[in-house]
């Protein structure tokens, strides 16, 4: 029988299994194959905080979702078209997310009465008719895997572990993915264990062949490469892009990079990555705690390095006092907060945007710190460079607010040429800059650049510029200790003015309003860019008009933000928090911004967001008709 090949524009696949089943690896490999084929793609890993949660339970389910298409896409997709479920728990945990008619591929090996009972299935869903809305393929993936790897002499348990590669092989056949990359990858990964390498490759090929030969799968699918701007591309995750951005910033500034960090999910990968690049002169310091992480980074900055510390919310809380010191010392420092669900330990592996106000205000005294946020995994690269630019230019700590979704998600990235990146070279102070009453030359560490208000950066080792800095208030100019009331007032206002002045270096806010007559503006920041963009497309496809703007700079805001907001009848601010940006724009611009808020640990669904935006558009039109009472759709205003 010759098999049918169908063309698709886009597919959303979710691999789900036990947290020890290797689903993240499977997803990563499928992503690499897909990237190599030239599809646009976006990924969403989702896993529990426990390394090995209890086997076969709902909390132990780990999944990896991948959206790929023949056109540019913005999100990992709302509802999977295909679910690969390696056990009953994975089926049960993910079924509710599928679109009607979705394909479900189930490994039947674990569908025993005991395992079904563990997740609360009274009857076997594969046989009781409850899956009728889906196209179900129940296959003994584990059994076939064990059979396929027999020649390698592994025990049944060990042999069964290669079932993820069998599933990957099957899906690779279904979607015409190239296989060489995965074979090469497996051979490299298990180079020291040839029989494990052999078993995984055999399972992978067996899965592919199974698809090709069995009658159960009669159709395979092709998704043409996406049309993208010319260039060299690679797939990249947010944490990797952020690491590379820091490295590139150091190279372009001519300064050594110093990272002080304490391991914390989901930021640790940045520490791991930068630790690999000592050949670039990168120093990574795994500190005894979060406080020492930022302390060491600040010490290195004092010595003339680009000091960086990486963490997540709980770590920021611990670093607060040192952040205040950095504000007072006016030294460059980049603080990366890969946000996760809070408060306290919260949801370590899930995403949230709830540290905006912490970054904005979480210190004693008036301690302003610029804030930059990336909007997609690949954008973490440019955002890191921008954070470094502000830190170096204005001699200030800068927050870089990523999140768990950006950190672990991935997408294609057009690789820049290093020479095209911004020039971040810095002028260290080398000369005295003041004359005392007796005509002696001296160095004043707080004599500012009139344009940026930045103070001179005189690093130890520079003769004649010996000076002392500290957290006690300093006299304007000389930097000596000062308790003078007027001086303190001046210094507080000057530090604020310096941070406010960053806005002068920013381009005008980009507003996407193609028809120019939209009355509703949707304003976002950070990782909601993808879902908001996808929702906006849906709204426009439905014939409505809407404008979109997305903030890279949260402090200071772009200078024209107030004007932009006032141009629209309604401003909607979707956030994965309870309305933190909405609070800021309402306070600063007195505009009636409406929050749309979720804290589910997952990115917004575009479909749902589109409904919300449509609702606001209808509300604005209804007001014109004198009909101002439209129910809100579970929308919070702060």
């Amino acid at each position, binding site marked *: 029988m010759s098999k049918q090949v169908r063309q698709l524009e886009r597919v959303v696949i979710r691999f789900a299994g036990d947290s020890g089943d290797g689903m993240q690896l499977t997803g990563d490999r499928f992503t690499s194959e897909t990237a190599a084929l030239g599809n646009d793609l976006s990924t969403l890993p989702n896993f529990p905080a426990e390394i090995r949660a209890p086997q076969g339970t709902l909390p132990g389910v780990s999944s990896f979702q991948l959206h790929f298409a023949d056109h540019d896409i913005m999100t990992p997709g709302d509802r999977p078209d295909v679910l690969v479920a390696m056990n009953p728990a994975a089926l049960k945990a993910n079924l509710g997310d599928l679109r009607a008619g979705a394909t479900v591929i189930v490994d039947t090996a674990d569908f025993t009465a005991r395992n079904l009972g563990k997740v609360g299935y009274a009857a076997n869903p594969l046989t009781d008719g409850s899956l009728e809305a889906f196209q179900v393929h129940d296959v003994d993936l584990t059994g076939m895997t064990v059979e396929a790897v027999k020649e390698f002499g592994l025990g049944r348990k060990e042999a069964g572990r290669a079932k993820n590669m069998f599933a990957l092989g099957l899906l690779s056949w279904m979607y015409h993915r190239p296989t060489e990359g995965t074979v090469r990858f497996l051979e490299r990964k298990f180079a020291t264990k040839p029989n494990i390498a052999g078993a995984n490759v055999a399972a992978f090929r067996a899965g592919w062949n199974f698809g090709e030969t069995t009658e159960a799968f009669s159709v395979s699918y092709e998704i043409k490469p996406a049309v993208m701007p010319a260039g060299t591309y690679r797939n990249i995750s947010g944490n990797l892009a952020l690491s590379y951005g820091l490295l590139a910033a150091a190279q372009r500034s001519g300064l050594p990079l*110093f990272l002080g960090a304490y391991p914390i999910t989901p930021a640790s990968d940045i520490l791991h990555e930068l630790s690999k*690049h000592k050949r670039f002169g990168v120093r990574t310091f795994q500190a005894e705690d979060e406080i020492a992480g930022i302390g060491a980074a600040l010490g*290195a900055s004092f010595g003339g390095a680009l000091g960086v510390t990486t963490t997540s919310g709980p770590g920021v809380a611990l670093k607060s006092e040192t952040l205040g010191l950095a504000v007072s010392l006016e030294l460059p420092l980049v603080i990366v907060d890969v946000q996760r669900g809070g408060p306290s330990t919260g949801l370590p592996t899930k995403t949230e945007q709830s540290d905006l106000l912490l970054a904005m205000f979480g210190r004693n005294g008036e301690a302003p710190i610029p804030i930059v946020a990336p909007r997609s995994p690949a954008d973490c690269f440019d955002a890191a460079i921008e954070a470094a630019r502000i830190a170096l230019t204005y001699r200030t700590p800068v927050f870089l607010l990523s999140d768990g979704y950006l950190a672990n998600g991935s997408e294609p990235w057009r690789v820049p040429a290093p020479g095209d990146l911004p020039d971040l070279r810095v002028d260290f102070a080398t000369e005295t800059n003041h004359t005392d009453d007796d005509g002696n030359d001296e160095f004043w560490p707080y004599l500012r650049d009139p344009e940026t208000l930045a103070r001179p950066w005189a690093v130890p080792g520079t003769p004649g*510029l010996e*000076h*002392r800095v500290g957290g006690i208030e300093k006299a304007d100019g000389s930097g000596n200790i000062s308790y003078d009331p007027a001086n303190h007032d001046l210094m507080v206002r000057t530090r604020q003015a310096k941070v406010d002045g960053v806005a002068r270096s920013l381009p005008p806010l980009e507003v996407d309003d193609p028809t120019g007559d939209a009355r509703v503006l949707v304003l976002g920041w950070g990782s909601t860019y993808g879902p908001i963009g996808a929702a906006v497309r849906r709204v426009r496809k439905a014939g409505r008009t809407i404008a979109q703007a997305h903030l890279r700079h949260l402090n200071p805001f772009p200078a024209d933000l107030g004007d932009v907001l006032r141009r629209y009848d309604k401003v909607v601010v979707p956030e994965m928090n309870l309305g933190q940006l909405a609070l800021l724009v309402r306070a600063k611009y007195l505009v009636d911004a409406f929050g749309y808020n979720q804290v589910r640990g997952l990115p917004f669904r575009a479909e749902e967001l589109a409904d919300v935006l449509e609702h606001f558009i209808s509300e604005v039109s209804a007001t014109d008709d004198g009909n101002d009472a439209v129910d809100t759709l579970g929308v919070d205003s702060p």
Partner: protein
Amino acid sequence: MTDTAHRVNIGLPSLRDVPKTDVPQRAADFKTDQEVRWCPGCGDYAILAAVQGFLPELGLKRENIVFVSGIGCSSRFPYYMNTYGMHSIHGRAPAIATGLAASRPDLSVWVVTGDGDALSIGGNHLIHALRRNVNLKILLFNNRIYGLTKGQYSPTSEVGKVTKSTPMGSLDFPFNPVSLALGAEASFVARTLDSDRKHLTSVLRAAAEHEGTALVEIYQNCNIFNDGAFELLKNRDTADDWTIRMTHGQPLTFGSEGEKAVVRDTVTGALTIGEAGADNVVVHDAHAEDPAYAFALSRLSTQDLRYTPMGVFRSATRPTYDAQMKAQLETAAAADTADLGGLLRGNDTWSVG
């Protein structure tokens, strides 16, 4: 933009190679124009004078010396030193200095801290700096009281101490800073006294010569909130009886007539106080590999300071953190080129257009 970023040398000369000066230095060169604001009679004055008087001996370029402090009376120290300096936040100076020293092996980095700063709020940073053996010299001014907050008991105050926060006497068992440091794998630990300029200077010299983290506990009198805390060791009538002066290679004898000694129990090996004439008198070995010996010495003293060893307890050789970090960077640089473009491209790329 001018190219001054490259004019300042922040390269990495060898660890021992903090640049030297040919110009003779005087103590006055290390004084700033800032008025010293400790209470009149404070022991800190003597320590400041000793440090300023001693630094010219090292002959280091002044611009390559950095003093980093935390919070407390002692932590005002950097403002009075005409070097680079940072008065940081409570307890964090060792962490900040670690980042500076690890990234700038061409600097001589000193930490000035107190018993509250180093042993209470900053205890974690202190022990980790010691175990890493970063090239830092930590001067711990121990006055056994919180001075800047006006007189609460500190982590080195004796049990039962009556202070503002302990009207019925302190319940806390104190740290012995030397024991703590040795337990934290310190490679250099010494103790000295603010008023003994000669001894203080000799200990500072030994600390400066040491490669790695050096902890120097300096007994320092707070004449406002804990006056006379070290009287037993300062008073001529009692000092010799209770102070065990340690010199490497010399027998540990003491007492006004030199009649007492540290002896080793021939059966248990424990160190105790005995007669100077005995044949089991301990000859001091500051370079002993095993810290157990120095630890045993540190346990001789009591909370009320009887039998207090003074001098260098331990000065052992161990690779420093900063030198090893530098070596890893050099190894990595020699093994592979630093090609940013290649790194960004990675191994799996595809081309469009």
